């Protein structure tokens, strides 16, 4: 999509494009042999470990890009045209202890719990904002013969730890997540995490279905489309992903993870939002500056708009989404993001430490399908976090 823009700006440039879901399979050999491509969209089924890339000095420092004048308004720097926090999200510490921006997260992603606007309207249900309401509604839904809540244990347990940790952030403030990301001692044992785990373990026990542990994300999502599941946690790519299977009038709607009690530190509107789809430029490629220029074109109004029109998702460039008619789900996510205002939080540990992600997924399944309790949950994830902290072969990140 952005190639024509780049070519208009640089008529002599040639762009070779290779598309794959298995990024690591295709590119690993090229990095290892010192011939990496200039520009990589490192997302999909199998993506390269950003931490390992940073540690090896494979990534181009993007400071120059962020400080460059933007395409549409040369008096504005590129960094001032995008959603705040996104530059920060792409920052990694190098081996010499400096923090530099290496990654451009391009797609705006809002996380929450999804439901069918139609199903809720037909039954006169409204999206709950606190946990008591949420449980009461789950009870009502259950009497209708619909499974109130579910996620796919076979391959998408991270959708659920996302919910637990989002709620923990609401209870104890965004620092709860910062501590987890920074591998602080006892970060997983913070009260907020334990309370959230307890709350959701109850949902798992009472309002979900044991068989979901053996299903893949698309299976459970399909069941929601068929009206057999009411609430499903995911990011705002869900609507696009389910396009083919969604019945007419389903109207995807997003609600933030409900707050636990009135004494939560963040308001009920607080939400997790982040940049998704990490793009980077390889420093050891033949033309890293060309790669950065390509990014600059992507971040122009036309570039962002073109992306949004093709994919139906919002980018981190707000100017690009202005006035665009999003489908109902993305529109509700954007509305929720707006309502959240400053209270937007994020977590990064899963990108930084894949092992911790794996452990959190496994432990989440154990918790939600009733094999361990909240205490054991925080205990075991903490143990893995401690092990990673001690492991000298793993590069540590801070934010």
């Amino acid at each position, binding site marked *: 999509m952005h190639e024509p823009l780049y070519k208009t700006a640089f008529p002599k440039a040639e762009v070779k494009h290779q598309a794959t879901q298995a990024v*690591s399979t295709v590119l*690993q050999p090229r*990095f*290892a042999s010192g011939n990496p491509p200039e520009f990589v969209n490192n997302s999909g089924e*199998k993506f*390269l*470990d950003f931490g*390992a*890339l940073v*540690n*090896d*000095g*494979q990534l181009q420092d993007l400071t120059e890009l962020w400080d460059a004048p933007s395409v549409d308004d040369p008096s504005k720097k590129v960094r001032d045209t995008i959603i705040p926090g996104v530059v920060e999200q792409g920052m990694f510490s190098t081996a010499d202890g400096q923090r530099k921006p290496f990654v451009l997260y391009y797609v705006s992603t809002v996380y929450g719990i999804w439901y069918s606007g139609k199903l809720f309207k037909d039954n006169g249900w409204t999206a709950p904002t606190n946990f008591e309401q949420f449980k009461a509604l789950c009870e009502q839904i259950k009497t209708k013969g619909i499974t109130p809540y579910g996620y796919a*244990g*076979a*391959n998408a*347990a991270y959708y659920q730890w996302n919910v637990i940790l989002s709620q923990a952030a609401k209870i104890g403030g965004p620092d709860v997540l910062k501590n987890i990301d920074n591998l602080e001692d006892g970060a997983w044992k913070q009260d907020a995490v334990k309370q959230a785990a307890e709350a959701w373990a109850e949902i798992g026990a009472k309002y979900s*279905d*044991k*068989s979901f*542990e*053996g*299903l893949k994300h698309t299976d459970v999502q399909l069941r929601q489309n068929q009206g057999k599941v009411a609430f499903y946690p995911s990011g705002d790519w869900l609507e696009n992903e389910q396009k083919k299977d969604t019945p007419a009038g389903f109207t995807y709607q997003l609600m933030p993870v409900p707050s636990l009690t009135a004494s939560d530190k963040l308001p009920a509107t607080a939400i997790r939002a982040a940049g998704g789809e990490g793009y980077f430029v390889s420093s050891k490629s033949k033309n890293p500056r060309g790669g950065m220029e390509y990014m600059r074109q992507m971040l122009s109004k036309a570039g962002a708009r073109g992306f949004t029109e093709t994919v139906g998702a919002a980018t981190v460039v707000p100017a690009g989404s202005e006035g665009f008619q999003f489908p109902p789900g993305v529109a509700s996510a954007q509305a929720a993001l707006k309502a959240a205002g400053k209270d937007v939080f994020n977590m990064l540990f899963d990108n930084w430490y*894949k*092992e911790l992600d*794996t452990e959190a*997924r*496994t432990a989440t*399944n*154990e918790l939600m*399908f009733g*094999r361990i309790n909240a205490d054991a949950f925080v205990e075991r994830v903490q143990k893995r976090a401690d092990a990673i902290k001690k492991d000298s*072969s793993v590069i540590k990140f801070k934010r």
Partner: protein
Amino acid sequence: MRHGKYPFVIGFLFAPVALYVTFVIWPYAQAFQISMTNWRGLSAPQWVGFDNYRRLLDDGAFWKAVQHHGVLLLALPLITIAIALFFSFLLNVGGRSSGGQRQGVWGAKFYRVVFFFPQVLAVAIIAVLFQMVYRPNESGLINGVLMKFGLEPILFLIKPNLALWSILAVLVWQAVGFYVVLFSAGMASIPGEIYEAAEMDGATKVTLFFRVTLPLLWDTLQVAWVYLGIAAFDCFAIVAVLSVDGGGPDGATTVLAMEIYRNAFVYSKYGYASAMGVALFFLTLTFAALTLRLTKRESVEY
């Protein structure tokens, strides 16, 4: 003519040996080398000596996988060989004898083809197939039927103490056909007169099986046991595609190849993954050597 023999032989051997060394021996040697480093797949590896092996000792997932191999190592050959022997006995000598010639049960030729079917399917396809069979809700092949009768669905791959056995069942299902054919070939070479003589002495079918077929089939059985044992050390494709959460729930079905895959391609810990690979290499080797030694028996000449 003795003169030119060695250059001639060496000339022929050179190409295959060179290929074998380059593509088999050399990668093995490299794995040993990488297992002594903390290589993360991108830049130059650093030498860390036996650190990775020390780490293996208190890696819970590793020991879980080893334990599962232990279970599979006993159960997979035992069950597969028992079923395959039973079937091939029925297919070859289980029926009536006509004109002094032992016959299989009625329709034996047809069954032989059917039993071989799973062997023709790619392993990944089998795994996907069994995802449907084991599916825990009303659209699963087994549970769909159970739920029609108002029964609770069986959570084949979800119950931690059932998951490994569900995987084992698939492995057995897939392997039996091949061994039926292998044993059939072995039984076909047992002379009919021996059966005849035994029958005249009043041996029942059961006696025939244990006193005639089994001893004369010993060599074939031994080969089958080693093959199946080595298969039990693999199981990667089935576990990776079929199990919940990649060897789950909570590592209840994980195998070494799965852990190697995870460490190498998810965590980018190639050094550590190689150390696991080396461990697997020695386990497999030890098993093969032990089996061949322990099952050594004088083979019967006929």
